Structures are given as C-alpha cells and as structure tokens.
C-alpha cells in the first residue's frame, strides 16, 4: 500500500531508455513474490531476458505463468521483489506504464474490437493525429497498416472487419499491433494454440525476424516441441517456483517434461488400438457450397479417425454439418447403415452423434450454470417425469460422470464459468457421454490445455473407444494426429486429399496433403 502511494508520485514521470546505449539485461525480475489471499502464486522468482533472445517459459496450468506475465505487464503489483527494464528499476502501477516502457503482450484469446477494421484495431490508442485539428490521419493509418501487413507477407485487407477473420488471422493482427507500438519486449502467451503447423512456422519466422532486430521475446507455451524449436533459453515454472533455467542446447524434451510435472511422462500419446467393430457412421459425397465437397468416409466402433488439415480447410464445418447445426446441400449420411436426415442437433443426439466444439463457452457450456445442470442439459428427457425434474436422479448422473472424468472443482454445484479450461473441457465431454453419444466429434480437444490434462483426455479417448465409441478427432497438432489416430483423413480447402492408416503416416506426408493444392 505504502509502496504504491510513494511509487505513484515518484515514478509517474517514468522514462525508459529507448534504444541507444547497450544494456546488460532487457528485463530482470528479482525475487518476485505474489500473494493472493490464501495462495502464494509466485515464490521468489528470478527471471531475466536479454536483447535479441527468445526466452520461453513453460509450466502446467496453475504454475504461475499468467501471474508472472501480469506482473511484467503491470496488471498486478508484486508483494516483494524488483523489476528492472533496461537496467533501470521500474514500478508499474498499471499496464499503461508497461506500454510506455516498450512491453507488449499477445494472448491466447485475441482481445480485438470485432466490429472495427484491422487498421483501426492496430492503431487503437495510438492513432496519429493532425497536430492542429487533432483529427485522426486515417489515410496514413490505412497506409501504415498496409505496409506492416505487407512486411510480414500476409494477405489481409486493412479495411476488413476483425469479426470476419479466423483465429489465426486475429492472432496476426495482435502481433502487428505490438509491432506498431515498437515493443522492445514482446510477450507471447500461448500464441500457437489456434494455429496450424504452417501458421506456426510462419509465426516463428516473424519471431526470428524480431529477435534479429534486438527485441526480447518471452514465449509461453505448453508445446515442448515448439519451445525447443524457437527458444534460446527455457525456464520451467512449477507451483509458482522457478525449477530451472537453461540454454536450449543443454536441454531435451524429456528433461523438460519431468521438470514441468515432477515425474516422467514417457507415454505422451498412449493410443492403444482397439479392434474396430461395425460401421457406425458413413458419409457419402457430402457437399456444402463454399465449405466442403465430395466428402466420403466411414467411422467404425472403437476407432479414432484423425481429421487433419489447416485452419479453414472445412473440418469444423464438416463436423457441424454431421451434428445437424447446418444442413448438407448434397450427399448422404448413414448411421448404423440407414440413411438419415440430420436436420438439427437434437436429431443428431438421438442418433448418438455429439460434437464438442473448439471454444467451449460458445457452443458447449452454459457458463452461468453449475456442473450438474450442464451435464444433464442434453438429457433433460431422462430426468423429467411429468414435466418435473428429478433432482436426485440428476445429481446421481452428474456425479457418475464427474467421477469418471475426474473433474476438479469444489463441488458439483460450482459454476462452470469459474472452472479452469481443462475442467470445462471435461464437463463438455461428460455432457455428451451422459447423453449416450456413440459417435463423438471432438474439435481440437486438447487445444490450450496443459500436459497433464492432455494425457488425461487422451487416456479418456482410449477408454471410450474400448467401450465401442467411435471418435472423429479434428486436430491441428500433427503429433497428436499421428499419435492418437487409427486412421487419418486430411482435408485441404474443402476436399479430402488423403486417407491413410496410422502406420503409413508421417508428419511430412500429412502436411503436404494439407497444404498442396493441385
């Protein structure tokens, strides 16, 4: 409290060394501790960042990565410890102060203005104005935006509205935004979650360019392979403490994993193949204008079919169509050998088809409701007698699936909105399981979750297939596709370009099928 009061006065006229003299360390955190009532989020954390380096931070969910970032950006103030930017001690009272010191951050979920254009988003808050009339120089802004976009070799129209963009493109806009502010320290928090391999490579090439220019980049990720590729140094955080920091050359994947979880995870993708049963789902020449065409494949009991492809290839659209959210304009769908018309999700569910969407809040869960109510949402029929809900029955069913999926919360009554991402995912799955889905379409099921939860979800997928459930797994993570699928389908701009068995699959082969268009 006192520190805040003093610092506000002293450091309000904060100035940061912008360019010029050589500095020892771009950023240095010394002995940082952060306490929230009852929890110690960070213990005596020391961290530093050099000019022109990519320093990665990895750790499980809850390790303290977000808190650390929030302290660097000024969103939170540490209880103890000091922060040095370009060797000068600073105290950030708010995020604005950290901007002034050249710190910019990009997060997993882009925080953009959906109804404004790309250029407006990029220059929001620092638009150039005519010094006399104070009006915004729009032409310059659109020109500058075009220039920045071009310098990164992307195809974006600065006048396009952000809401028309896909995940990856929104992420790009965020990066361009940071570039436009001449950030010296760029924080990337799980930037690759919604990107496919090609887009990740592209992001990395930009990161390397920035590194060459002397920018210091803090790269936070769960994805060890990416970290090993892009980072110069890696720091492992666990339970709020720094477990270790080392140069990439001295580290390897296994060592990192064991540092992160404190145990050896040698079975990363434990796919145990089940003997496939009868065909549950068959799709013939499915077509929807502008989304996909000529899609034919089948799905058998106990199988996991991986659907690979770039973002925008039409996989999600295909999933939604099979689930009845959209109607196919051509082709047929067969369930258990009989042709069906899936006009809406309710019919799909009655046939045993369920769809778990990419972003859990949007389609899957009602965040204001508790776990029990979310789990029983699709099966209100089963828990209703004469129009009235049988709460005991409801609770029993919810409890059953709560335990099966090992959902972590302080009770069945906890509001889903306050659960962690991984647990929300589990509630989503529990919901469909309770509805006796036999055909699960999982759209990016382990996006943005930590190593432990990922393993749990994969184990769950294995167990489900042992019970005869068929899974269509849409994933942009090649190792997951190769590791967990029995068969692999590759979609490319709306058509199926490759179908192969897991034994014949290679990352290169799949990638090729995903990006090369005839």
């Amino acid at each position, binding site marked *: 409290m006192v520190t805040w009061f003093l610092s506000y006065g002293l450091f309000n006229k904060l100035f940061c060394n912008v360019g010029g003299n050589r500095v020892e360390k771009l950023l240095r955190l010394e002995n940082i501790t952060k306490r*929230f*009532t*009852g*929890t110690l*989020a960070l213990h005596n954390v020391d961290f530093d960042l050099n000019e022109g380096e990519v320093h990665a931070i990895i750790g*499980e*969910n*809850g390790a303290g990565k977000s808190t650390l970032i929030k302290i660097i950006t000024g969103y939170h103030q540490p209880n103890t410890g000091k922060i040095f930017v370009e060797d000068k001690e600073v105290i950030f009272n708010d995020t604005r102060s950290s901007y002034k010191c050249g710190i910019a951050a990009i997060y997993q979920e882009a925080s953009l203005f959906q109804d404004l254009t790309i250029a407006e988003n990029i220059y929001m808050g620092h638009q150039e104005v005519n010094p006399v009339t104070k009006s915004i120089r729009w032409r310059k802004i659109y020109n500058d935006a075009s220039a920045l976009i071009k310098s990164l070799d992307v195809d974006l129209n600065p006048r396009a509205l952000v809401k028309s963009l896909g995940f990856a493109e929104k992420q790009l806009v965020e990066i361009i935004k940071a570039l436009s502010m001449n950030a010296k320290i760029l924080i990337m928090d799980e930037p690759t979650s919604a990107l496919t391999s090609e887009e990740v490579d592209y992001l990395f090439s930009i990161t390397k360019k920035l590194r060459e220019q002397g920018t210091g980049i803090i790269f936070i990720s769960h994805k060890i392979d990416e970290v090993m590729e892009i980072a110069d140094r890696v720091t492992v955080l666990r*339970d*709020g403490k720094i477990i270790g920091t080392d140069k990439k050359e001295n580290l390897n994947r296994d060592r990192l994993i064991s540092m992160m979880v*404190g145990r050896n995870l040698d079975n990363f993708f434990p796919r145990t193949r089940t003997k496939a049963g009868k065909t549950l789902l068959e799709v013939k020449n499915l077509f929807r204008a502008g989304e996909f065409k000529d899609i034919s494949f089948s799905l058998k009991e106990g199988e996991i079919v991986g659907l690979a492809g770039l973002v925008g290839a039409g996989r999600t659209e295909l999933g939604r169509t099979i*689930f009845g*959210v959209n109607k196919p304009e051509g082709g047929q769908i067969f369930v258990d050998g009989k042709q069906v018309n899936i006009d*809406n*999700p*309710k019919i799909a*569910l009655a046939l045993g088809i369920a*769809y778990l969407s990419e972003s859990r*809040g*949007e*389609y*899957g*869960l*009602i*965040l*204001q*409701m508790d776990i029990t*109510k979310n789990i029983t*949402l*699709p099966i*209100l029929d089963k828990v*209703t007698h004469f*129009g*009235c*809900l049988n*709460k005991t029955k409801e609770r029993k069913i919810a409890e059953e699936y709560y335990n099966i999926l090992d959902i*972590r*919360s*302080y009770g069945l009554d906890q*509001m889903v909105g*306050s*659960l*962690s991402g991984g647990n929300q995912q589990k509630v989503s799955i529990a919901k469909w399981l309770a509805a006796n889905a036999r055909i699960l379409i999982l759209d990016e099921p382990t996006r943005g979750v930590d190593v432990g939860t990922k393993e749990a979800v994969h184990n769950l997928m294995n167990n489900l297939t042992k019970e005869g459930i068929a899974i269509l797994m849409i994933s942009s993570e090649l190792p997951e596709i190769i590791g967990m699928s029995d068969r692999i389908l590759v979609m490319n701009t709306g058509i199926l370009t490759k179908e192969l068995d897991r034994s014949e699959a290679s990352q290169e082969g799949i990638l090729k099928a995903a990006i090369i268009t005839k």
Partner: protein
Amino acid sequence: MANNNFKNYLSGVIKRREFAVFIVMVVIILAVGLRNPTFLTGENWNDLLIYSSILIIVSIGQMMTITTGGIDLSIGSVLALSGMSVGIIMREYPSLHPLILILISVLIGLGCGTVNGLIISKGNVHPLITTLATLTIYRGLVVEVSQNKWIIYMDFTEKVKAIARGNIFGINNIIFIAIVVALVFYYFLGYVRKGREIYAIGGNPEAAKFVGIKQGNVQLLVYMLSGALSGLAGILWISRVALVQSTSGLGYEMMAVAACVVGGVSIYGGVGTVVGLILGSLVLGIIINALELIGIADFWKMSVQGLVILLAVIFDTVLSHRVLEQLRRQRRVFNVKK
C-alpha cells in the same frame, strides 16, 4: 460430520447474492424504524406488504423475461388495460362474482402477453422493441376502452373492494395470492423442465439450441406468463387503490426491473432466483413506504427507483469482481494440488 455440513451450508448461504439483499433489507428496516417508529406498526406493515405483494407478482413475470435475455416493458400498460377492462365490467355488471373478475383480468393479461410472445418468437422482433411498442399500444387501448373516463371509488362494488381488504386464513388476500404465486413459480423455475430451459436460453442460446431447446417456444411461454401475471396484478391493484385511471401503473415495468436487479437477477440473462426477487421487491416496497412516511412527493418515487437500480448494479459489479477473484484463487488451489 453433520455439523460440518451445516457449516458448509451456512457459508454457502452467506456467499450468495440474496443474503446480501437480506442484510440490506434488515439494515434499512432498522434505520427507518429508529427514525420513525410509525414504520414498525402492524398497520403500516400491512400496507407495505400489500404493495410489495403486487410488485412481486409482476416482478416474477419480468424476471422470467429478463432471464431469457429479453425484457417486458409493457407490464404497466397490461396492468392498466386489464384493470380498466375489469373495472368497466364491474361497473356494468356489479353482481359478478369477484373471482370471475379476477379470471377475466388474468385472461386479458394473458392475451396481451401472447401477442408480445408471438411477435417476439415468430416475428423475431427484439423483445425490447416489441414490448416498447405494445407498451404504447396497450396504453392507447386503455384510453379508448375507458373513453378517457376514470373509474372511481363510488363505482367500486363492495365485493371487489373486499379483494384487497379481505383475508384468507388470517392473511390479507393479496398477500396470500402473492405467496401462492411465488411458491408456484419457485417450483416451476427450479424443478420443472421448462423452467430450466428458461435459464438455458438466457445463459447460452447457442448451447441450448444444440441440445434441442426451442428458443421460440420458451420465449412465447415466458411472455404469456408475464402478461398473465400483469393481468392478475391489474385487478389486485385497482382493488387496492379503488381507482382506475388511464395512467394507472404508468412506469410500473421499471419498478419491476428495479426489484429484479436488486434481487440479483442479471440483466444479461441466465441468472436469478425467486427468493432474491421477493427480497428485492420487499426492499423497494420498504423504500417507497419510508419515503411516504417522510412525506416525499409522489414523483420523487420514480427518481428513487432509478437510483436504486443504479446502486444495485454498481454493488453487483463490485461484488462480482470480488467473487470472480475469489473463485480464481480457489481454482488456482485446485490446479496446484497434485
């Protein structure tokens, strides 16, 4: 073990929004009571409770519409239309049994609500726009139907006046009706499937669609119920004041919104309880009553209403930030545990 459960239950209760409203209510009662002891008399409380009862009845309707993500701005007009219509019928046919009049009032309200519901669900017009329009249309009908003449005290039959003055099982009729309505809807919203669907539609319309809940049907139902409740309130209102004007109930829908907001109903939909609503209505009733005792003019009451809504929302925002922080911390604890 049982003791622990009770403690958990208690701490669960305390954390809830409704408990905060309850505390506020107690504080206001004490404050006003100390200042003006007349406030605490049985007679005053009877008036207060009757006033609040009518508010509870319409607020339940309003709560349901807000919970589905909409709103019903026509409540005041529906109340007036049904009240005026029944008033005229009473004047022309004074021998009609009051229960029939109550039924007619409810039916008129139901009709108005159905029109709202159809426009919203079939016509796909936003509830705000729809009920804003019907607010004026129904109000216009009131003027038309009454030929702009009031129904005054003298026109009221004893039987109808008795609605507001009589007792059932020792409790005033109106209070009794409110209790019954509250119980019915408490059960409906908490234990009946359609009630659950109301929360689902408001919480995440897309997710509700995914599981086959038809938004149109739920909306139609909700506006029909709101209309019916406003109709019920209509005859209770006119019986209580023994007067029907073309301006009766003007702005009452906003009072209902205030009661909802104070009671913890989220303006964004998906959240709200009957208990909270009752407490909210009581708080508002107490404030209005207190203002009357202090002798404040009628038109200030509207300002107070606005102020109360504002304060309640500010309180909510501050509170929800603190609750979210707390939940985030708890989540951290759970993920750290290995």
